[in-house]
């Protein structure tokens, strides 16, 4: 092969390898950064992993918001109207956080089943329900109806 061509070939191969490594690294990191969403029912039934970052969502149970001594840590319950999960969060809650409203929390489940949140999201639009939360509520509702039907079938 012509030496000039050879040099060019090396450079192209080098570039391809470089970009390939970059893409590989990025895709690898991608899998580590996926955060799955679990509904309170799934958390209670033990489907959600503990110690790994996940997101949970549902409605904040009315009357469940409690503030700890230091004034910055709060506990509240999140429900899909079937099961509830207790959430602990240290910091300032978002402006639109209110009891009875749909929220999404990002964090880890500890061994006692308490969800320790790093971030709590409530949305700009008060009529807006995060799709995940709406879905979780819907699923829990359908299961409840099915349950009742089954019980009704046995007199």
């Amino acid at each position, binding site marked *: 092969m012509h030496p000039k061509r050879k040099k060019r070939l090396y450079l192209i191969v080098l570039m391809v390898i470089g970009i390939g490594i970059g893409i590989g690294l990025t895709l690898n*990191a*991608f899998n580590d950064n996926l955060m799955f969403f679990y509904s309170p029912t799934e958390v209670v039934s033990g489907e959600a992993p503990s110690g790994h970052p996940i997101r949970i969502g549902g409605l904040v149970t009315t009357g469940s918001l409690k503030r700890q001594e230091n004034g910055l840590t709060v506990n509240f319950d999140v429900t899909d109207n079937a099961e509830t999960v207790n959430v602990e969060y240290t910091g300032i809650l978002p402006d639109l956080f209110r009891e009875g409203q749909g929220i999404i929390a990002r964090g880890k489940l500890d061994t006692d089943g308490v969800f320790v949140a790093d971030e709590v999201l409530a949305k700009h*639009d*008060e009529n807006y329900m995060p*799709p995940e939360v709406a*879905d979780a509520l819907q699923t829990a509702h359908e299961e409840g109806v099915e349950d009742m039907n089954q019980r009704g079938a046995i007199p």
Partner: protein
Amino acid sequence: MIPELGNFSLILGLTLGLVLAVFPMIGSLNNTPAWVALARPTAWGQFFFVALSFACLVNAFLVDDFSVLYVSQNGNTQLPTIYKVSAVWGAHEGSLLLWALILSGWTVAVSLFARDLPAVVLARVLSVMGMISIGFLSFLLFTSNPFDRRFPVPLEGGDLNPLLQDFGLAVHPPMLYMGYVGLSVAFSFAIAALIGGKLDAAWARWSRPWTTVAWVFLTIGISLGSWWAYYELGWGGWWFWDPVENASFMPWLAGTALIHSLAVTEKRGAFKRWTVLLSLLAFSLSLLGTFLVRSGVLTSVHSFAADPARGLFILVFLCLVIGGSLALYAWRAPDVSSGGRFDFVSRETLLLGNNLLLVVITAFILLGTLAPLVYDALGWGKISVGFPWFTTMLIIFAPFMILLMGIGPLARWKHQDSDELLRKLRLPFLVSVGAGLVAAMPVLHEGWSLWIGEAVMLSVWLLATLFIGLRQRLQHRQGPTGIWRDLRLRGSGSYYGMLVAHFGIAVFVVGVTAANLFDVEKDARMSPGQIIEVAGYSFRFDGVEAHQGPNYRADLGTVSVFKGEREVAVLKPEKRTYLVQTKPMTESGIDAGFTRDIYISLGEALGGGDWSLRLYYKPLVRWIWLGGILIAIGGLLAATDKRYRMAIRHRASVLVKGGLAAGGRP
């Protein structure tokens, strides 16, 4: 009555859009000059009617006409006048009308400023823009009409979302839309060129200033949005990798690739097919962005309540535009000659590398944005892609881009002697590595910091290479006074624009790195009179008092900030409750500075006069937006390059003779 007028003129606008999309295009294909001549007046007529319609909606907000559903949802008698106007684009229907208005505005601009374009090419460009406007106007009329009435008429409106009652947000959407829609000009030029089968340097020269201007608007729009999020959301962040932010960032990246590749096509005639493809891609990505925002398929801070019919409409429209343009591309592109040849070591190759990296980054952001949709559709569970991944991805690819950004402008077109290039690069390399090492040393901060070292190294690398390039240019132009002569007489705007924009990138990199690595954040419970120290500043909480605004009540906190004994600032963070929507809103108190921001947001009352507060020290955070402004100024310099006008005037006489045949099918 006036809302009906608005509705009718919107319908007329759609009708003219149909005329514009059909007749000039057919006329240009079968040589019917009368039909070709229709393009310009139709475009003007369409703009007139859409503008009239928009004015009717503005009027409805100004006079508080709550019989109009949209006004009753987003307007209010108590709203200050400026926000009555910005409320027009505060929600779905009105912001689409703004989209349509801006699109017809760009169409008119093309018909006015591109007078020297051959009539056939102009007719095709306007016609394609007409087709896009049909999509948006029928979307407005059939699924989201802003003029729908309601009965009974409420006495008071539902008010504009308090978050949007802010100057930054009043101007952010129009700027962003100018950018999004502006990319449709590049798209239309590309489609017209594909139809005509003439992809030459002239096409690139026509397309270039338009693309640059659209890209400048996009840059300004994104910077404004980021600045707004920073001071308005109260989280101290300036970028969240939110799907909607990504939706604006992707067209920007594709647009950046496009303006570089257009430069190659104009100057060297190479990369023609690639440039066309990028033109199609950039606009498709801005349509995709609109789809993501409007359909509510993704969880995002920007989401409006979802409506499946709307989502479906945009999805079909998206498929038509992307599918249609790609099909046309597949059919016509193979005929395009490959154009200027170049050696491996040349400016062309370096720009190709830059394009490749930009496209890879765009593809990854697309992956991260759409992955939740794909996972959900395939039943793999509901996911979100974490913030850190996007950052990791940029940290992997951006350094290579900046490396190329330094070399590219110093390399010659077509053939570059590698030894000569290495000689030129030796000094910048040594200086930047040295500066990076110094910045990474533990003297300035605790422990070695590789990241800050890398950021400083990359910035200094950019600065040094820019400086060498400038010096080299001025050697042939009689020193620094040559810059002015260069700009005024020779039309070197694009060269100096490049310098300024690349300098902006260097500033941006330093700002991002410092703001991310050295910011200090502290959530605290504070009693009146209490002092807390953060990052060498003492914050004294002086309590909270009630305050009455025009359409809100507020708790107004006072925090005095000291550095040693000296009082630096008295900040007044607020917690507002708007009277109509009763939403609490944080207005952070910010002491902005060139070297650092001090940022305080008020949390909740904890009883006994105590409040929770969030205190931030953010070094160099302003540099992020300063970089954005510099990038935009660079783009403006490039777009106003005299060369475009001179070249067009020069060619105009030639083209008049060519007439219809010039742009006809081969």
